[in-house]
Every structure is written in structure tokens, then in C-alpha cells.
């Protein structure tokens, strides 16, 4: 790889096969769109995200048609960034009201998430330039040869103050098994929340009250994971015909009505299945 200026590297990193968007007020790589929004040169509320998504889906389809589908990494990267953008836009579109102190915090949390995403992206790009530099430098092999005997003879006689016993202690110390490295995913998966359990809870509340807003339903959710689980539970209940949704305006208040009668409703555990038969992880050997 030829050495290039930082700007060149950057273009190369997002160059080949980069996803381009064509909007009324913007045309270019998705990455650039992101940068412009973060630098406030483009108002996130003026970006037609639906159109971005359409173009993205089209790009993926086209790639599939050419039998060179996008890898999972690129797809998920887009999804994460697009979801954050959408979240950001939704937050900006909502009218700010006095009581929305919590929402403000939520908004800051979103900005933080977005900043973190961009920070990670920056390190990813700079990692690519470091990798290129290491590869380029590796084209030179350093001279590292053993001392010629007549020079080694100049060295002062070695004072070796250890015997076989001390050597064994040193070897045992160095060879002592260390705890097998494990990949800690606790930050990714906070204590498992069961969709089935949340469905039972939500169904119980709605059966009693008849209807309620989503906001009220998740009011006591301790973590975003629980919010997500309750939302998924509602979708499952909808599939079972147990609830109906009302939403007057897009992004407006979501109201859920119970339509399931008194019969017991249990949802499928698509989300809760334990990977019981998955092989145990092998502790970082590869």
C-alpha cells in the first residue's frame, strides 16, 4: 500500500463500495453525511432519512443481485448509525415542553451515544492508517544478528547466581497456568430480561385497565433493555391478537388497547431461547 496523506487514506478507507446517498440537499457518501450533521452544517431534521434508508436497501439489493452481498459488519454498522440518526431526528422533531426534563436527559444520552459512535469510527479509520503504516514499514527488515564469537568473547564472564532449584522455581512461576481469558459481554447483555415474563406483566396490566399508553407501560422499566422487552412483548401480543395499537400522529403518543378477552395468553419465546446446545466458548485460544 503506498504511503498517502491522511486525507487520502481516509478517502480510501471509505472509498471502495462505500454507500452513497442522493438527497435534495445532499449527495455523497453516507459517512460524509454523518460528519456534516455532527458538525451542524446540515440540520438532521432536514435530512430525508426514509430516502436514505430506501437507497440503502436498494444498494444492498443491487449488491446481492451482483452476487457480492455486503458483509454483516457493514450492514450492522449502517443499522446502528441509521438507528442513532433516526433517534436523534425524532428527538429534535419533538416539541420541547417544560415537563420533559427526563427527555432532555434522554436527548443528551443520545448525543453522547452518537459522539461515541463517531469517536469509535475515528479510531477505526486511524487504525487503518496505522495498519497501512506497519505493513509499509515491514518491507524493511531490521538487521539483528548474533555477536561474532570474537566480540562475544569480550563480554565479561557471566555471573550466574542461580542453580537448578532456582531455575525450576522461575520456570514454574512463568509456566503457572493463568486464568483462561474470557470475553466479558456483561456490558453488552445486561441481566437477561425475558420477553415472555414481560408479556405476562404487560398483559396483566392491560387486562385490568383495558388500555394504556406505552409511556405508562414502561414508566417503571428499570433499564432500556426492559423497555425493549416490553415493546417486543407488545408486538408478540399483537401477533396473538391480544392487543391493538392507536397512534394519532406519527411519532405521537402510542396507546395500546386490550382485545384479548379473559383467556390466558402466552407469547412464543423467540427472544428468550437459551443457546443450550451451543458449544461452550473455548477461552481465547484462536
Amino acid at each position, binding site marked *: 500500500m503506498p504511503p498517502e496523506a491522511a486525507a487520502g487514506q481516509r478517502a480510501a478507507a471509505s472509498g471502495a463500495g462505500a454507500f452513497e446517498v442522493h438527497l435534495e440537499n445532499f449527495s455523497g457518501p453516507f459517512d460524509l453525511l454523518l460528519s456534516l450533521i455532527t458538525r451542524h452544517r446540515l440540520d438532521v431534521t432536514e435530512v430525508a432519512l426514509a430516502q436514505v434508508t430506501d437507497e440503502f436497501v436498494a444498494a444492498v439489493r443491487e449488491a446481492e443481485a451482483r452476487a457480492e452481498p455486503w458483509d454483516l459488519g457493514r450492514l450492522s454498522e449502517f443499522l446502528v448509525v441509521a438507528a442513532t440518526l433516526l433517534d436523534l431526528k425524532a428527538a429534535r422533531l419533538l416539541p420541547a415542553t417544560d415537563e420533559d426534563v427526563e427527555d432532555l436527559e434522554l436527548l443528551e444520552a443520545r448525543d453522547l451515544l452518537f459522539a461515541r459512535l*463517531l469517536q469509535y469510527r475515528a479510531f477505526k479509520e486511524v487504525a487503518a492508517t496505522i495498519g497501512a503504516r506497519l505493513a509499509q514499514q515491514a518491507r524493511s527488515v531490521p538487521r539483528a544478528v548474533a555477536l561474532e564469537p570474537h566480540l562475544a568473547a569480550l563480554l565479561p564472564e557471566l555471573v550466574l547466581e542461580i542453580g537448578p532449584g532456582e531455575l525450576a522455581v522461575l520456570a514454574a512461576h512463568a509456566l503457572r497456568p493463568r486464568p483462561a481469558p474470557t470475553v466479558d459481554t456483561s456490558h453488552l447483555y445486561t441481566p437477561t430480561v425475558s420477553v415472555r415474563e414481560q408479556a405476562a406483566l404487560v398483559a396483566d396490566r392491560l387486562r385490568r385497565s383495558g388500555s394504556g399508553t406505552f409511556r405508562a407501560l414502561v414508566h417503571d422499566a428499570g433499564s432500556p433493555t426492559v423497555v425493549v422487552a416490553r415493546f417486543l412483548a407488545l408486538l408478540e401480543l399483537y401477533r396473538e391478537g391480544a392487543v391493538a395499537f392507536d397512534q394519532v400522529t406519527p411519532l405521537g403518543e402510542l396507546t395500546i388497547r386490550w382485545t384479548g378477552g379473559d383467556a390466558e395468553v402466552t407469547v412464543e419465546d423467540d427472544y428468550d431461547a437459551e443457546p443450550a446446545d451451543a458449544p461452550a466458548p473455548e477461552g481465547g485460544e484462536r
Partner: protein
Amino acid sequence: MSAPEGATGHGPAEAAAVDELAFDVADLPGGAAAALEAVLMVADEPVPAVQLATVLGLPTAEVEALLHRLAAEYRGEDGGRPRGFELREAGGGWRVYSAPAYADVVGRFVLDGQAARLTQAALETLAVIAYRQPVTRGQVSAVRGVNVESVVRTLVSRGLVTEVGTEPSGAVLYGTTPYFLERMGMTSLDELPPLAPYLPDLDALEDVDEAEGAR
């Protein structure tokens, strides 16, 4: 000056003996330049100009000028043919390398995969450590969003990263090594490409750091 890892410092008696010069490099057949070349031939890590100056009994500035002249000569800038080797300053000193133009030939000869490629995960972790050092594993994890324990261990065993201290909390702080600089062909961390062009907004990032620190 960094002493070789395999040896401890020497006693005052030896140092005194070393200070008596039994020769004057100018009297040697190839002059100071050849003496410098001879020393560089047995060096197995970058040698600081100061150390070379001590060994040769010459002022450091003179040795530095000589090193630059030799490097240029090997590149063929004095009208001679370009050499198959080059003299480079990296990782805190000077060392002889095969010239990159002959990488394909040398690669056929050097089978020992001494420069095995780093994985994407290792490169990203290395990048965060390089720019944020000294930094804890937890802080690197926060940026990368995944646990980096085994990756950091790989980087340490490759000699690119090392423990540089501990936080009051007891968490180990990591930084890059002189060997990392040498592998990057750099003499100082200041030569790392600036991160700013890749970053949208520095203020926002400081907030992120603070939020991470509070966790």
C-alpha cells in the same frame, strides 16, 4: 539511553575503563564513517546517537551529521548506486534495515514470519492505546465497545504495548513501547497522524470521556 533488556547497568570501574580511549577514529582506515558502520553492524536494536558518540569518542552533533550523511549515501544520493540496505532513525535510535525496494527478495529469504499481521481488533486497540496513553483496559473497552483483555495481552506479547503504571484505583495503565515506534518508523509519538481530522467535534468527545470515567 535504554540499556538492552538482557543486562543491568554496569559498575563505575567498568565505566572508568571505557572512558580511556585506546584509539582515535580519525586514524582508522575508513575514518569515523566506517567506525560508525562497524558498530551499527553489531547493533540489534536502535542505538541512540548519544551512545554512538560516546563509543566513538566524538561530539554527538558530529555523529548525528555523520549518520544523516551515511543514510543519504545508502539511498544513493551522493551519486553512487542505491544500496540494498538503509540506515534509519526510528524507535529512539539508529539501525540498519534492508531497503524496502527489495522487500520481495528479502521476503523470500526471511521465512520467520516476524511481522505477522495484526487483526482488525488488535489494530483498533493499538490505535486507542497509542492516542490515549496512558490508558486502562477499561477505557479502551469503553471506546471499542467490547472487552479487550485478550487483545491487549496479544499486543503486550508482541512487544508493541506495555504496562506503564497503575491508577490509584489499582487499574493497570498501558502505553506503547519504543518497539512500536520502531515498527511505525517513527522517532516520537508526536509523529502519529493527528486524530482531529477524523473526529467531528472535540468538545463532545470530552463529554464522552467524562461519562466513561464516571462509570
